[in-house]
């Protein structure tokens, strides 16, 4: 058994078997799955073997290898899910790049199933957690859109290169230059924001006097060497220091910053805060096309870099997030024509990103080596030391939510800086960006809301004052204050439960109004979802929930749209026993669960007897056996239905199962509330026993 066989040997055998796998052979795949199941002790070695096989094998053999992976994760589950999940992005995308379109679409289908719970399992969590699948999805979306946009982009870049004395268009970072109205009139295009191409974004002049800051500052790297640069801020003369502190005057957003403020901003372009520094649209920009092309290539580079980074550190969530943000940005950039000011905004951020990789060593350690600067008074979430805490799933959810609703918005740009910025933040603790600066110059509402969402997701420091931003159409996940407008202002949230509750079921007690308790139904619950009014706490958990909830709304919409083309019908009610065993999973609240769970759980609970489905037309689908028992379906003509059907079959997600197998497999709700490690046969049996016991109980009590 597994423990007797050395790990390497198992892996070798496995690899050998894999090498022979050249076609989609059910037998071989299930055989490999069995090997994997029996050797969970060597799971790491096996998964490594499979991963490297996928990487190395010829494109033609990649798909079968993926099927093995798919089969293992669905039939065995953890720990394989864990091991494969780590580098799933690279495994998947690298292969995707090499295979032909036919295989690609198969891979996409497979990926789709990874976002759903394992069919047949009552576990409502998706096969792979969304953190794992989402970057891939985004990459795929990007791949598709970029194809379409390629042409457009090309023209643009051609135009842009012309007449610009840009030395290296491809890698030019956009140096961030907010042009303040005051003395900071930016010099003509070349020196201005735009395109001092070779100016690394990093250039950050040590000099204290912001105003003196010449655009042609010393090389960027310099700034990195000065660890305490964060500390410099306090010493700044610009008088804007107060902005660094939590309460920020909201008004500033829309007013042009006074000269020194501007200079202040300018000084820190490289700093993480920069994402917030929006530039006044008025800036003298180099031509849009020019910047666009540069920008596109910058982003491209960044993507590549981050990919590499991510593959080195698959555990680092921030990289995924970053990558995703980059893709999003790229997509948006390519698919839309943005006003110059927006582009410049993006450029700023990209410039910073570019810098980020260089400082990677620092960033990767959550605790920055730098001693916290004296000013660290900022409570904003962004200041939290760990990247993952900032870029948790909530953030991703928020991003997804963003993406979902933002229509053509340049604002996504802000997403990029946001994600990326976390690494740097260590350097700049004192410098809480003035919130005001953020939405600053952009009159367009969307950016703000986007920022708001990011902020809500904990990716950007929260700004107390952005109230003006939220547009009704856009739903902001959890902006602490703004969405709240429909509730009476409350300063602080009291955690539920602390509120004294003295109500008893006595007429007199019931008649006394208790506004403080009532707050427990409103303010204390957090801000409401704009679509259904459901409230979410503004703490981390609440944010995650809300992000997941917004995702859920999004998915439902999507699914309803898809479903519109097909006929829909009401399902049968569940049978007593299934009902007793089913659990309401709050799909929309748990981050880990796929939004579909509610319905799928219900579906799963459906009675299986006498179920049939129309025999599928698609020959490939028709040849797939039941994933549980691996036996083919029985086709017959059904008079009642007036068509050929598969008896005892049901479709769950994309897969077709024997209804009986499926019910069998879904019985283990109780014992397997969470899909654990290899699903032991024993566990299943136990669950069945439970079931019988139940039936017996019901019978006897009845």
């Amino acid at each position, binding site marked *: 058994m597994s423990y007797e066989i050395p790990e390497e040997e198992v892996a070798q055998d496995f690899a050998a078997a894999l090498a022979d796998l050249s076609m989609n052979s059910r037998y071989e795949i299930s055989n490999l799955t069995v090997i994997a199941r029996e050797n969970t002790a060597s799971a790491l070695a096996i998964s490594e073997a499979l991963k490297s096989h996928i990487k190395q094998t010829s494109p033609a053999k990649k798909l079968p290898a993926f099927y093995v992976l798919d089969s293992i994760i669905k039939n065995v589950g953890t720990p394989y899910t864990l091991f494969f999940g780590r580098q799933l992005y690279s495994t998947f995308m690298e292969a995707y790049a090499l295979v032909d379109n036919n295989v690609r679409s198969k891979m996409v289908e497979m990926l789709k199933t990874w976002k759903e719970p394992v069919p047949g399992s009552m576990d409502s969590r998706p096969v792979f957690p969304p953190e794992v699948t989402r970057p891939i999805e985004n990459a795929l979306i990007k791949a598709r*859109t970029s194809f*379409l946009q390629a042409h457009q982009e090309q023209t643009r870049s051609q135009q842009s290169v012309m007449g610009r004395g840009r030395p290296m268009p491809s890698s030019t970072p956009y140096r961030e230059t907010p042009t303040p109205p005051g003395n900071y009139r930016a010099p003509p295009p070349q020196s201005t924001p735009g395109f001092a191409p070779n100016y690394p974004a990093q250039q950050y002049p040590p000099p204290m006097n912001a105003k003196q800051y010449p655009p042609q500052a010393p090389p960027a790297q310099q700034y990195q060497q000065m660890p305490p640069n964060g500390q410099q801020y306090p010493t700044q003369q610009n008088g804007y220091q107060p902005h660094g502190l939590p309460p920020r005057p909201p008004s500033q957003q829309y007013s042009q910053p006074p000269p020194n403020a501007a200079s202040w901003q300018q000084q820190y372009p490289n700093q993480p805060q920069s994402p917030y520094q929006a530039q006044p649209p008025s800036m003298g920009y180099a031509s849009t096309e020019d910047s666009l092309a540069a920008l596109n290539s910058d982003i491209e580079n960044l993507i590549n870099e981050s990919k590499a980074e991510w593959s080195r550190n698959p555990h680092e969530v921030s990289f995924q997030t970053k990558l995703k943000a980059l893709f999003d940005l790229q*997509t948006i950039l390519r698919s839309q024509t943005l006003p110059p000011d927006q582009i410049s905004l993006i450029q700023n951020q990209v410039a910073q990103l570019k810098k980020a990789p260089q400082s990677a060593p620092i960033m990767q350690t959550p605790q920055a080596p730098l001693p916290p600067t004296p000013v660290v008074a900022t409570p904003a979430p962004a200041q939290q030391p760990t990247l993952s805490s900032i870029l948790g799933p909530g953030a991703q959810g928020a991003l997804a939510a963003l993406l*979902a*609703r933002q*229509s053509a918005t340049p604002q996504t740009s802000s997403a990029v800086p946001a994600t990326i910025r976390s690494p740097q933040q260590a350097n700049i603790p004192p410098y809480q960006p003035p919130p005001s600066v953020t939405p600053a110059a952009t009159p367009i509402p969307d950016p703000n809301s986007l920022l708001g969402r990011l902020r809500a997701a904990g990716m950007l420091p929260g700004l107390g004052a952005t109230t003006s931003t939220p547009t*009704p159409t856009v739903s902001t996940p959890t902006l602490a204050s703004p969405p709240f407008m*429909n509730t009476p202002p409350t300063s602080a949230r009291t955690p539920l439960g602390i509120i004294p*509750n003295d*109500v*008893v*079921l006595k*007429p007199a*007690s*019931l*008649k*006394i*109004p*208790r506004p403080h308790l*009532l707050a427990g*139904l409103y303010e204390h619950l957090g801000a*409401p*979802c*704009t679509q*259904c*009014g*459901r*409230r979410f706490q503004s703490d981390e958990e609440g944010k995650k929930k809300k992000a997941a909830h917004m995702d859920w709304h*999004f998915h*439902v*919409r999507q*699914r*309803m*749209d898809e479903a519109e083309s097909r006929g*829909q*019908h*009401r*399902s*049968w*009610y569940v*049978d*007593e026993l299934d*009902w*007793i065993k089913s*659990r*309401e999973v*709050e*799909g*929309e609240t748990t981050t880990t669960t796929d939004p579909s769970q*509610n*319905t799928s759980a*219900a*579906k799963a609970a459906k*009675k299986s007897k*006498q*179920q049939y489905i129309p025999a599928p037309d698609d020959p490939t689908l028709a040849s797939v056996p039941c994933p549980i028992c691996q036996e083919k379906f029985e086709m017959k003509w059904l008079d*009642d239905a007036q068509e050929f059907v598969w008896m005892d079959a049901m479709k769950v997600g994309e897969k077709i199962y024997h209804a009986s197998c499926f019910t069998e497999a879904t019985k283990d709700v109780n014992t397997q509330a969470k899909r654990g490690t290899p699903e032991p046969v024993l566990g299943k049996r136990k669950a069945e026993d439970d079931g019988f016991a139940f039936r017996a*109980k*019901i019978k006897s*009590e009845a």
Partner: protein
Amino acid sequence: MSIPGLGQAAPAAAFSAPILEAPVAVHELQANSEWRFEVEIGEKIDVKILSGTAEIFGTELAVNHLYTFRGVKSSIYTWHGCRIEVTGTCEEYTAEETPMTQYVNTHFALEKLRDEAAQNGREGPRVLVVGPTNAGKTSLVKLLTAYSLRMGRQPMVINTDSREGLLSIPGSLTATPFASIIDVEQGWGSSPTSTSSPIPVKLPLCYYYGLPSPEDNTKLYKPIITRLALASTSRLTDDPAIKATGMIIDTPGVISQGKGGFDLISHIVSEFSVNTVLVIGSERLHSEMLRKFSTYRTSTGETITLVKLDKSGGCVDRDETFTHQTNEAAIKEYFFGNARTTLSPHTQTIGYDDLLIYKIREGIYLISAPIVDPSLHSIAHANSFLPGGVEETEQGLFEKVEPNPSMQHCILAVMYATVNDSQDAVRDASVMGFVYVAEVDETKRRLRVLQPMSTRITDRPLIWGSWPEAAVSLVG
């Protein structure tokens, strides 16, 4: 590039596109007031909260989201004041005196009981709501459910009132765990369908009583209640989230006003181990209950807390026509979905001989001397393996009938049982779904039925009750 998910408000908006210019009114509601409205069946209004907070039976409404109400008598309450925009015509007025403080406090009192129960590892309160017809029982149940949902609880809602369905059609008794927001536009929401719903679906366990009043046949009603209680208690014990929250039980008004009612109330109380009784709008019922339950102990030895609540001034009488219309709407919704989701039921033609149909005997006196149409005996029931003559000798609850034209446009319940099961087993079985008899063809001895999905139903017994009453034709 189109980014999906943009048109959040689109679905509601799509249906609301008015052909005629509908009147738009903006109402300014003061804090703690209630805007009550009645929309005629077949009419609709669109409501949008412009600012402030508002809730419908405890479920908070989203600001700037378009809500559409069709054929409903309902109300919007605000604790903090709000502005609402109403498009369309309805009867409406604003009330400032409401028992909402009492109701919300009841909720908080229950919350306290839930916390205490959790601390002691016991089950959350089982709350029974009683009161005469049209006293606002169902509304209170909905309100308490919604509030507890907002606090993150998972209440189990039991409907023992067959006049109205809860996530099912009338005639059925259901138990439903709630974990997600109640649909404010469509009663309680929807049971599962093959598609997704913008409001998560709820999963009811359904039993069929098939008569409008429990007193029509207590010999059928009681065992079904027992069965319902058994299943819900099993779920409750098993499911920690529900256990912590407890149950909220709605009752038919008739048992709170008739003479024989108390017997049924105490049956429900004991079957569900009720420990909290809320009496709405009847002083007399309250004192009567107080007297009878003062010494009562539940199976776990708890005493019963009894409290009287005021009836809301907003309660309106629903006349027979309205009830009939809502029943019909519920049946339509079961098969065809609602404005948001269109469902396509399956039509099937079944021979007389392939069906086993039990008709519910009405009136408790009928059981002793069933009058059976002699012609029935001559007909061989293909799927019936009951020994010959059972139907005459058994003093069953059901009478086995052959399809006949009077069945047209009626609802039959498909039971989770087999044709070989005894009548008691059929009675105790839960409902798989309902079929609608679209057409009875006497000459060809065939029935055309509408069923939610294309599953074979001939291997299951069907129950034919007199409630809901025969609807108008659902299919053209």
